[in-house]
C-alpha cells in the first residue's frame, strides 16, 4: 500500500506542490535576508551621520575643543555608534579607534584585532580642511540577526515540508482508496455481477461525479443488454413460426407429393418461405444497424417535397390497384439534412401501411407543411383507426395487432420507422384524426440555408 501510494497521480500532484512550495520558500528567505541586511546598514549609517552632524555643529560654534567634547559625550551616551574618531592631521584628538587612513564616504573597516565575525561599517568626513571625523558600528549584530532569522525560517520550512508530504500521502491514499473501490466494482462487473454499482459518498466532488457517470453508463449498458436479450428472445420466438411452416411443407411434400409438378410446387413454396425468413433477418439487421447510428455518414441535403412527390408516383398506381385513393397535398419544397435511402424507406413503409391495413375505398393523404422551422409530414387515412392505448406498442419490434396477424409481415415496419426517425433526430407520433382514422405525424428540422 505504501509503495503503491508513491505511484499514484495524487502523490505526483502533491510532490509537484511540495517542490513549488520549497522553491518559493527559498526565494522568500533570500529576499528577507537581503532586506534585513539593508535595514541594519541603513541604521548604522543614520547613527554615524547623526554623530558627524553633532561634531560638526560643536566645531562650528566653539572650535576643536567643543568637537572633542561632543565626541566624548557621544561615546558615553547609550544607543550611539560603537566607534568614533577625531583626528587633526595625523594626530588623534578623541575617540576609541586607532589612527587610520582618512577615507571619506561609507565604507567598512576591519575590527580591531581582526575578531572573527566582526567588521565596522561607518562614515568618514572632513569637517574642516585638516579635521577628520569617523563614526561607525559593528556589523556583528546584523549578522547575528540574519542568522537567527535564517535558522527560524529553516525550521518553519522543514516543518511545513513535513506536513505537506504527510498530507500528500494522505490525499493520495484517500484517492487510491476511492479509485480502488471503482476498480473493484469494475472487476466485479467483469466477473459477471452486472448489477454491481460504485457506491457514492454524496460529496459531489470530481470522483463522485465520475462514479455517477460510470454508474449511468453501466445502467445504459444494462438497458441495452436487456433490450438485446428481449430481441434475441423475440427473434427466436418469431423465427420458429416460419421455420416450422417450412418444415411442415417439406414433410407434406415427402409424404403426399405424387407427381413432379407436386414436388415443383412444394419446392417453390419452400424457397418462398426461406426467402421470408431471410427477409426477416435483413429487416432486423437493418434496424440494428440504424440504431447503431453508423449511417449518419450518408446524410446529405435533400428536398422532402421532391422525395414525397416521387413516392406518390411510385405508390399512386399501387394504391389505385388496391382500390385506395392516394392524395398528396405537398406544400414543398422542404430542404432537410438526411439519408435519402432511409427516408425513402420510412415514408414507403408508412404509405404501404396505410394501403395494407385499411379497407378498400379508404382515402390516404400524405401532406407536407413547414411549421416553426420544421418540416411536418402527416400520413393519415379515413379508415377504422387504431385505439389510443395501442399507439405506443405499435413502435415495438414484432408487435402485431390482432387484426393484422393473418396478413404477411413480422411487425417490424414501425420499429424501423422509429429507428430511422431517431437517427435523424426527428420525431414521430401516432394520432387519431378528425375522421376517426389513423394518422402518423413526422417532424424534422428544416436545414438552415
Amino acid at each position: 500500500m505504501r509503495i503503491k501510494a508513491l505511484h499514484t497521480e495524487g502523490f505526483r500532484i502533491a510532490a509537484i506542490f511540495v517542490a513549488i512550495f520549497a522553491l518559493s520558500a527559498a526565494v522568500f528567505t533570500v529576499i528577507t535576508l537581503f532586506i534585513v541586511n539593508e535595514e541594519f546598514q541603513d541604521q548604522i549609517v543614520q547613527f554615524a551621520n547623526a554623530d558627524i552632524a553633532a561634531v560638526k555643529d560643536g566645531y562650528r560654534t566653539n572650535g576643536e575643543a567643543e568637537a572633542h567634547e561632543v565626541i566624548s559625550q557621544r561615546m558615553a551616551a547609550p544607543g550611539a555608534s560603537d566607534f568614533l574618531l577625531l583626528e587633526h592631521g595625523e594626530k588623534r584628538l578623541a575617540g576609541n579607534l586607532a589612527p587610520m587612513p582618512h577615507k571619506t564616504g561609507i565604507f567598512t573597516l576591519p575590527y580591531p584585532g581582526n575578531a572573527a565575525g566582526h567588521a565596522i561599517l561607518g562614515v568618514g568626513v572632513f569637517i574642516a580642511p585638516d579635521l577628520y571625523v569617523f563614526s561607525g558600528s559593528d556589523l556583528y549584530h546584523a549578522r547575528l540577526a540574519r542568522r537567527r532569522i535564517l535558522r527560524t525560517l529553516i525550521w518553519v520550512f522543514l516543518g511545513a515540508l513535513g506536513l505537506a508530504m504527510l498530507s500528500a500521502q494522505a490525499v493520495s491514499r484517500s484517492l487510491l482508496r476511492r479509485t480502488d473501490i471503482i476498480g473493484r466494482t469494475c472487476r466485479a462487473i467483469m466477473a459477471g455481477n452486472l448489477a454491481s454499482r460504485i457506491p457514492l459518498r454524496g460529496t459531489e466532488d470530481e470522483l463522485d461525479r465520475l462514479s455517477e457517470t460510470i454508474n449511468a453508463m453501466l445502467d445504459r449498458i444494462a438497458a441495452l443488454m436487456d433490450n438485446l436479450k428481449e430481441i434475441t428472445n423475440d427473434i427466436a420466438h418469431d423465427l420458429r413460426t416460419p421455420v416450422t411452416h417450412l418444415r411442415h411443407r417439406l414433410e407434406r411434400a415427402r409424404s403426399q407429393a405424387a407427381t413432379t409438378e407436386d414436388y415443383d410446387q412444394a419446392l417453390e413454396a419452400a424457397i418462398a418461405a426461406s426467402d421470408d425468413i431471410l427477409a426477416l433477418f435483413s429487416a432486423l439487421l437493418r434496424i440494428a444497424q440504424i440504431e447503431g447510428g453508423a449511417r449518419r455518414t450518408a446524410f446529405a441535403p435533400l428536398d422532402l417535397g421532391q422525395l414525397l412527390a416521387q413516392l406518390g408516383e411510385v405508390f399512386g398506381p399501387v394504391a389505385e390497384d388496391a382500390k385506395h385513393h392516394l392524395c398528396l397535398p405537398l406544400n414543398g419544397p422542404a430542404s432537410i439534412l438526411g439519408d435519402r435511402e432511409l427516408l425513402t424507406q420510412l415514408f414507403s413503409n408508412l404509405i404501404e401501411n396505410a394501403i395494407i391495413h385499411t379497407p378498400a375505398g379508404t382515402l390516404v393523404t400524405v401532406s407536407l407543411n413547414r411549421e416553426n422551422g420544421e418540416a411536418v409530414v402527416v400520413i393519415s387515412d379515413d379508415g377504422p383507426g387504431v385505439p389510443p392505448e395501442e399507439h405506443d406498442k405499435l413502435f415495438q419490434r414484432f408487435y402485431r395487432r390482432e387484426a393484422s396477424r393473418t396478413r404477411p409481415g413480422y411487425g417490424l415496419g414501425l420499429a424501423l420507422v422509429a429507428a430511422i426517425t431517431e437517427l435523424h433526430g426527428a420525431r414521430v407520433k401516432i394520432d387519431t384524426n378528425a375522421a376517426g382514422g389513423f394518422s402518423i405525424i413526422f417532424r424534422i428540422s428544416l436545414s438552415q440555408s
Partner: protein
Amino acid sequence: MKILLIEDDPETADHICHALRAQGHEVEESRDGAEGLATARSGQHAALIVDRMLPGLDGLSLVKRLRAEGSQTPVLFLTTMSGIDDRVAGLNGGGDDYLTKPFALVELVARINAIARRGDPRQHVTLHAGDLDMDLIRRTVHRGGKLVDLQPQEFKLLEYMLRNAGRVVTRSMLLENVWELHFDPRTNIVETHMSRLRAKMDRGHSVELIHTIRGNGYILRAD
C-alpha cells in the same frame, strides 16, 4: 463467357460456380485476395465476382487496385448481410453492382449478365426493340409508328428494360434501378407498374414484348 469468382467460402463458391456453369459460363475460381488479383490482372475475364471480405487482400482494395491499373472488367461485389452500408463504398470503389448475402442464385446470374454485357459505352439517343422505338431526348415511345403515352415512372421502367433487352431482369434490380428502392416493399410495386406498362405497350398488338420469367423476373424480347 469467362467469369472470375474470388470467394473464400467454398460452399458459396460451389453454389455460384454451379449456377453459372449451368448457364453455359466458364468459371475460374480464386480463394484469396492476392491470388485473385494476380488472376484478374491477366485480363481474360468478361466479369469478376468479388467477395468484400477476403483473406490476404480485401475485395474493395483489390478492385480499387485493378481500377487504378486501368482495368475496365465489370465487377459484382458480394457482401454479408451486416454490410448494407458498404454498398455505396463498393460502388464508389469501382464496383458495377452489389449483392448482399444471402441471395438467390437467379439474382446473381441476372446481375452478372446485366453488367458483363453492358459493353457499349456510347450514349444512346434512341433505344429499339422490334417495332418499339424510344426517343431518349424527346422522351417519347412509339410502337408500330403509333405514340404510346407513358407516365414518367413507366418510361423509366421501359427504358431500363430496353437497355437490358434479351436479359432476365429481377424484381430487386428493377426496384433499385428504376425506383431507387433499396428494400423489399410489401406492396406489389413492380407488378403494378409492369402490368400498366404492358397494357399500354401491347394495346392493339398481338406480340408481347415483356415476358414474365417464372421464379424471379422479367425479360424484354423482340423476336
